[in-house]
């Protein structure tokens, strides 16, 4: 890092008192937590009329921040977060505090319980046309950096879309 002084951005507050708030400093907004979040656009690897089995997600993160990360798979625009009758297939993992930035890859297996009554003894791969992934850091954040580098989606095509006729 250079020692050149960089102009610093400040915001003026209005919620409680006339705060002078230095931006990009610390990991709370004047004692209030905030959540970094990234929700990808939907992809349909086999086309809108096709079907895939979504097997794994590999997310690459660079960090030295101690923080919990939660990944939520979204299939056919429905988040698998335990709401709306959907299974909770979110993955939460913890990143430790580090003395220097470290880039790591984390794997998330994609599956859901076999849809039979009783204890879940079997799991199926996620199947559908569309897939999205929402990655978020759970508050509270801590000192350090948190950088989302890349998501790699691994899938198998079950059924390709039919080729459309030329209009």
């Amino acid at each position, binding site marked *: 890092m250079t020692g050149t002084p960089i102009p610093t*951005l400040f915001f003026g507050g209005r919620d409680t008192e006339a705060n002078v708030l230095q931006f990009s400093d610390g990991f709370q907004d004047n004692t209030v937590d905030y959540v970094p979040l990234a929700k990808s656009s939907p992809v349909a690897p086999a086309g809108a009329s096709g079907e895939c089995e979504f097997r794994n997600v590999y997310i690459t993160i660079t960090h030295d921040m101690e923080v919990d990360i939660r990944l939520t798979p979204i299939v056919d625009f429905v988040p698998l977060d335990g709401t709306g009758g959907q299974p909770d297939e979110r993955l939460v993992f913890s990143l430790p505090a580090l003395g220097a930035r470290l880039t790591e890859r984390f794997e998330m297996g994609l599956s859901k319980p076999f849809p039979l009554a009783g204890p879940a003894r079997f799991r199926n791969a996620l199947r559908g046309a569309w897939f999205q992934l929402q990655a978020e850091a759970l508050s509270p954040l801590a000192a350090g950096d948190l950088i989302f*580098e*890349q998501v790699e989606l691994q899938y198998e095509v079950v059924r390709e879309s039919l080729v459309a006729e030329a209009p």
Partner: protein
Amino acid sequence: MADKNRRIINLPYGEGLERSKGVMVIKPTSFEDLRNVFLFEGKAQARGGLTSTAVLQDDGPTDLDVTVLLAALRSEAAAIGIGYNTTGGANREVWVNRMDVNGSNPLAVGQLGTLSLNATFTPPIIVGADSDNKFFIAHDEPFLTDRFVTVFYDPGQNPALINLTADLDGNGDAEVFFRGVVRHLSYIFGWGYGNAEDPDRGDVVRVSDSGDSTQFQDFAFFEAGQRGEPVMVCRSAGNKLMVFKETETHAIFGYSPDTFGIQPSDTLFGCVSSRLAVTVGGTVFFWSTQGPRITTGGPSQDIAVPLDIEGPDPTTLVEESEVQDAFAEYDPATRVVTFVWGRRVYALSIRNPQRPRWSYYELGETAQCGGQFFDTQSTVGGGGAPTGAPENLTFPNALTTDILEIAVNFDNVGETGVGTQIEVQVSKDAGATYTAVVTVDSDGAATNQTIVIQEETVGTSIKPLTDYKIALRYVRGGLHSVGYTSTDPEDWPVISTGSTTTVSNAPFWVLRTGGNTGLWTRNSPTVNRIINTIVIPTGHEFLEIEVEVQIETDGSPVVQDLGDGTGPPDTVDQIETPFAFLVLLDPNTTVLDRLDAVRNRENVYRARFVNTLQANTGAFGALARSWAGPDLPTALQFALDSGNEGSAFWQNTGSPARAPTDCPPGTPPGSHNTEFWVTVNFGVWSLETQTGPFSQGIESFDPGASFGDEVSVAIRHKVLTCSAFGGPEPSYSKFTTTETEEV
């Protein structure tokens, strides 16, 4: 063994939001929702937080409630913050603070005003710009009657907030009411104000002089588009100044009054509020009626499409503020342009200018304003508050003749920084209420700087024989040293305070012809009246006058019969009764009229001013000598002839010439005679003769002397009491000086 059927899709972060495209055409690497991250090429980093470095204050100091402006004062490596109060007795007050560039140590340097109850925007929308080592402050209020006058903060002045005035209509200087100000090239541009005769001109943009940003000429203005449609904001785009109205944009080109001009730049898009535009590297990012756009001086380009601002917001995304409270800023550390709408921020990462990328920030605290602070090294003002204090006060000289003043000598201890001034506060009558009387430059000397407080020079009331308390402190740019920030000097360290009492010159007397100061009359056998006239110097009008009197005899060498019934000759000391208190005259008294003068004596008066409130007395002045009797003869001439006969001549001046003086009006006068006394060889004096009224000489008398003897003569007037008083006691003048001749 690899699974040949498995495939992968890479979804690198950093592509940014894309909410406008349909799912069939959208790029897989774009994002439907990105919050609290800023974007690099291929990665997204969690943004940093907001750390409170200070709370803006009024002069109490009491914390204010809303921060309405933050900006840099680059020339002093300082920052300006403006706060608004929403509570208590100071409700709606707007205060200007100066801060360090790290956002700490805010100190109130002045009050912008109290927001009108009818103001359109609450909290007020304040727009500022630094230029020429000053900071200009304008109030973006649509209605002129509710708008604050435009002011500028000048760190070199005290008070540091100065109303901007200019003669914009040829009728003399008048206050200026801009809706906004911005610096461009070497000028300050202000908009939204015509002149005192035609003030409500929202379409007018004025430009200052180049060498002095506080000077505006009546001819130096531009009319931007349709009259009546106000300019919202102006921002630099390279060497052009973009003038944004709500639905159109104009560009002021040129670099000097000779080359300036204005032309339409974008006839479709403008900026929707006074703070939703920011310049980054010659490009203006602004918020139009169709969302954010950019311009580099020409027609603007749309950058709003990926946000799909007309579409539904992402689920749970925090609400926007009102448009007038929104603002645009640039964060150089992350290279992100932020359009801040309260807690919602549209963040545009421009690390790759060719591919700007959007994300959202959700702030934990509502932001009302923003600004960049510059930690520059090239300052002119020394930066920040002074660090020392004037100490060891002494008062070497509290009066020079006829000039009332207080001289304060002190040491400059720990004083650092260019532009430090010394504020002098004075409390009269040793009370607790101080007044700031003058601010002077520090001479930088470690010891013995002297400030002279003169009534004539500082316009304050410096009175004689009055107790004053003096308190000094440093001030630079409206800031004060630690321990000296209170507005009450009683709170300052005692080492910077002191007290003194002004001294006084004395009242003096009007001198009459003949040497007497007073005018004697005899009003009865027992009443002798002497009237003296007093002159009161300037500045002493409120003081009482204490008068003392001393009684003296003639002091003549003539052994005399003073007519006191003890028979001649009397031998008395010259001072019969030493000075003693006589009377205390009211302030502004100019006549000493005494009916208790001692007859045939020198009644000697002396006077001095007295401050009875504080028991302070001045010096006695010259004496007023008044003989309680007629004036003496003058011009005595004495001669002896060869036959030892003498002759003498004199003149009658003063009271004998004006006779009668010793009788009541309308009564027969008394008679003025002249006694002629003689002695031989400095022996016993004897009364040779008494001449008649108004006589002026004795042509021949025999002193009884022999050859070689020395004959001395002296004369005095004698006034017999007029018949109306019925008393026998005469009044005498002093003796003349002795004249001596040798036979």
